[in-house]
C-alpha cells in the first residue's frame, strides 16, 4: 500500500523580489515499510518539501499539489485542527540540529510524555492548569505517559532511562539528544517518519548508531521513513529507493543499488563524482561548477542546464520529461538520455 503519494507538489513563497518556487512540481511516493532517500545540495528544496508534507510551511508559503495523499487521504484538504492530530501521531519529524530541537526548559522525559498525552487517550489532562500543576510539583512518575517516556528512551538505547528522563536537554550529549528527538517522534508510533538530515550535525560514529537506530525502528514500529540528506554515503547505507532533487525539481529516481551503479542524470553523475569513494583511487575530486540557481523565475527549462557538461541549446528550451533510463523504476528527467523502450513519462 502507498503510505505517501505526492504528485506535482509546488511550494511558493511570495517575496518582494519575486515568487520563490522552493519546490517545483515534485512527484514522490513512499510505500509501507520503506526507507526512501531524498538527496540534493543545500538549497535544493528538500527541507521545504518535508515541511510541505506536514503543512508546516509558514506564511507567506503557499502549497499546491495535484495530489498529496497520506494513507489515501488528501492532506491539503484537512483543517489546521485535523493536522495537529496527524502531526506527531501519524506523521513525525526529526530535525537536523539536535542542539536546538529540544525545548531547554522542559525535561526530556516530560517532552516525550507530553507528546503521548497530546495524542493518546490515556486519561491525563492536557489543559493549561493541569500542565501548570505538573510543571510545579513535577509530573507523576507513576503516570502512563511517564512510563511510556521511559520505555521510549530505553528503546532508543539511552542508558539509565529512569534517571535520564528527569534531565534537561543541556545535560544530554548531541547524539543522545538526537535519540531523544527520535524517541519523541516515535512515541505515538507514527506511520511515517520524516528525518530531515538527522545525522548532519553528528560525528560519524554517532551517525552510524543513529542510522542503525532508524533501521531497527523500521522493524519494530513498522514505520515508513523519508530520509532527507545531502550525504550520499548515508543514502547508500540505509535507503531502499532514492530521489535526487535539484533546484526544487526531481531529476532522478531509482532503487539505491541501481542509482549508485548506473547514475543517468548528469547532475547525479556529477554529484557522485564529487564524493570521495573508497574503492577507486581518485587524484582529485570533481566539484560541480557553479551554484544552485536562486529559485526565483528560473528562465530556462532544465534547471541544471547552465552547470551541465552535456547541455545543448534545446536543454534550455524544452522541459525535460521523466523517462525510463534503466531497469525497473529507474527514471531521469533529462532530454539527453535515450529512453529505454522509448518510454517517456509525461509531466503535465
Amino acid at each position, binding site marked *: 500500500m502507498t503510505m505517501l503519494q505526492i504528485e506535482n507538489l509546488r511550494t511558493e513563497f511570495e517575496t518582494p523580489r519575486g515568487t520563490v518556487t522552493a519546490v517545483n512540481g515534485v512527484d514522490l511516493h513512499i510505500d509501507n515499510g520503506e526507507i526512501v532517500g531524498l538527496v540534493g545540495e543545500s538549497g535544493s528544496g528538500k527541507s521545504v518539501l518535508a515541511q510541505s508534507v*506536514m503543512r*508546516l510551511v509558514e*506564511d507567506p508559503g503557499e502549497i499546491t499539489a495535484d495530489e498529496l495523499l497520506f494513507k489515501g487521504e488528501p492532506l491539503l484538504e484537512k483543517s489546521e485542527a485535523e*493536522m*495537529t*492530530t*496527524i*502531526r*506527531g*501521531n501519524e506523521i*513525525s*519529524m526529526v*530535525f*537536523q*540540529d539536535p542542539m*536546538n*530541537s*529540544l*525545548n*531547554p*526548559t*522542559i525535561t526530556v522525559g516530560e517532552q516525550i510524555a*507530553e*507528546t503521548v498525552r*497530546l*495524542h493518546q487517550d490515556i486519561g491525563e489532562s*492536557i489543559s*493549561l492548569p493541569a*500542565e501548570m500543576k505538573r510543571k510545579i510539583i513535577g509530573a507523576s512518575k507513576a503516570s502512563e505517559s511517564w512510563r511510556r517516556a521511559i520505555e521510549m528512551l530505553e528503546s532508543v538505547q539511552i*542508558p*539509565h532511562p529512569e*534517571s*535520564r528522563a528527569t*534531565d534537561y536537554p*543541556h*545535560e544530554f550529549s548531541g547524539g543522545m539528544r538526537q535519540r531523544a*528527538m527520535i524517541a*519523541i*517522534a516515535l512515541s505515538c508510533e507514527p506511520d511515517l517518519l520524516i528525518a530531515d538530515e538527522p545525522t548532519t550535525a553528528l560525528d560519524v560514529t554517532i551517525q552510524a548508531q543513529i542510522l542503525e537506530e532508524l533501521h531497527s525502528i523500521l522493524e519494530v514500529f513498522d514505520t515508513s521513513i523519508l530520509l532527507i540528506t545531502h550525504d550520499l554515503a548515508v543514502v547508500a547505507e540505509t535507503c531502499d529507493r532514492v530521489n535526487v532533487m535539484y533546484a526544487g525539481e526531481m531529476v532522478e529516481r531509482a532503487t539505491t543499488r541501481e542509482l549508485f551503479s548506473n547514475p543517468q542524470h548528469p547532475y547525479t553523475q556529477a554529484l557522485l563524482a564529487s564524493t570521495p569513494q573508497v574503492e577507486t583511487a581518485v587524484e582529485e575530486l570533481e566539484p560541480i561548477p557553479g551554484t544552485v540557481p536562486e529559485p526565483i523565475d528560473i528562465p530556462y527549462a532544465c534547471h541544471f542546464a547552465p552547470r551541465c557538461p552535456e547541455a545543448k541549446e534545446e536543454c534550455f528550451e524544452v522541459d525535460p520529461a521523466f523517462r525510463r533510463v534503466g531497469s525497473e523504476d529507474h527514471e531521469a528527467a533529462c532530454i539527453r538520455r535515450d529512453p529505454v523502450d522509448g518510454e517517456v513519462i509525461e509531466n503535465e
Partner: protein
Amino acid sequence: MSNDHTTAGRSDSDALDPDERERIARRYRDESPVESTENRGVYRRIRDQILSDKKAIFGATMVLLFVFTAMFAPMIAPYEQDETFGINQEPNSYSEGDYTGNGEIDRVWHVLGTDSFGHDLFTRIVFGARISLLVALTTVAFAFTVGTAIGLIAGYYGGLIDELLMRYVDFQWAFPSIILAAGLIAFLGGLGVTNVVIAIGVAFIDDFARLVRGEVLSIREEEYVLAARAIGTSDRRIMTKEILPNAVAPIIVQMTLMIPLAIIAEAALSFLGLGVKPTTPTWGLLLAEGRQYINQAWWISVFPGLAIMVVVLAFNMFGDSLRDAFDVKQSEVSEK
C-alpha cells in the same frame, strides 16, 4: 628496537583479559553517578551571583527589609497609624499628654518627629510601606499579565494582529505615563488603591509588551518551536509551554526594574492628589503634605523622600544583579 621498546610497556602480563576488563569497567560504570551536576542549578548560579556582589547584597537586604516592614507594619510601628500627638514635632523629640486615656500624662518619643496633623512620622512611613508594596506588586502584576499577553500574541502571529497591537503600544509609548495615569484616574472617577493600580498598570503595559514581543520574535524561530509544531502542538500551547518559559529571565528582570518605577508613580500620583484617599498613609501623600511646611518642618517631606529613594535604589541594584545572573554569556566570561 624501538618497536620492542613500546610494546614492552604493555606486555602480556600487564594486560587484562576481556572478562576481567569488563568486570572492572562495570564496577566503574555502576559507581559513577549518572546525574550530571553540570549546570544543574540555575538557582544556585543566581544565588552565587548575588552573594558575590556587594551592591546586590545591599539591594536584596533592603528589599527584604522593605517587604518585612510592610508585612509586619502593625508590630514594627510604635503607635497606631492615625493616633495624633503634638503637631510638627522635631525628630528625636517627645510629646506630652494623656494619649492612652487613663488620666496620666504620657511622654511619647518621636524618632522622626510628627507631621502637621500630629501623626508620628515613623509610624506613618512604616504603614506607608504597605501601600507602596501593595501598589507596586499589583501594578506590575497587572502590567505583566496584560503586556505579556499582548507581546506574545503580537510576536507569535505577526502580520495584521502584530501591526494593530504594536501600534497601540507605540501610541501608549509616546504618551507620558504619568499623564496617562492621571487621565485614567479622572476617567475611572474617584480616589482609591484599585484605581491607582489600574491607572499605573495600564501605563506600564507597553514596556512589557515590547520586551516580550522582542523575545518571542527570536524564540519562535528556534528549531524546538518548529519541532513542537511537528509533533502536533497547538498555537496556544506553543506560546505558553515553549515560548514563554524561555523568555522568563528578561521578564523577571524587567519586573524588578518596574517595581521602583511603580512606587515612584504611586508617590507622584499621591503627591498630585490623584492617588489614594488623603487619610491613607502613603509616602507620596506625606511628601505632598510636608511641602507646605518645608520651611518650619523639613522632616515631614525629607524622611518619606528618603524612604522612597532607598527602596527604589535597592530594587534597582537587585534587578541589575539579577540581570547579570540571568545573562549566561556575561557570567561565563567573568568566571574565566
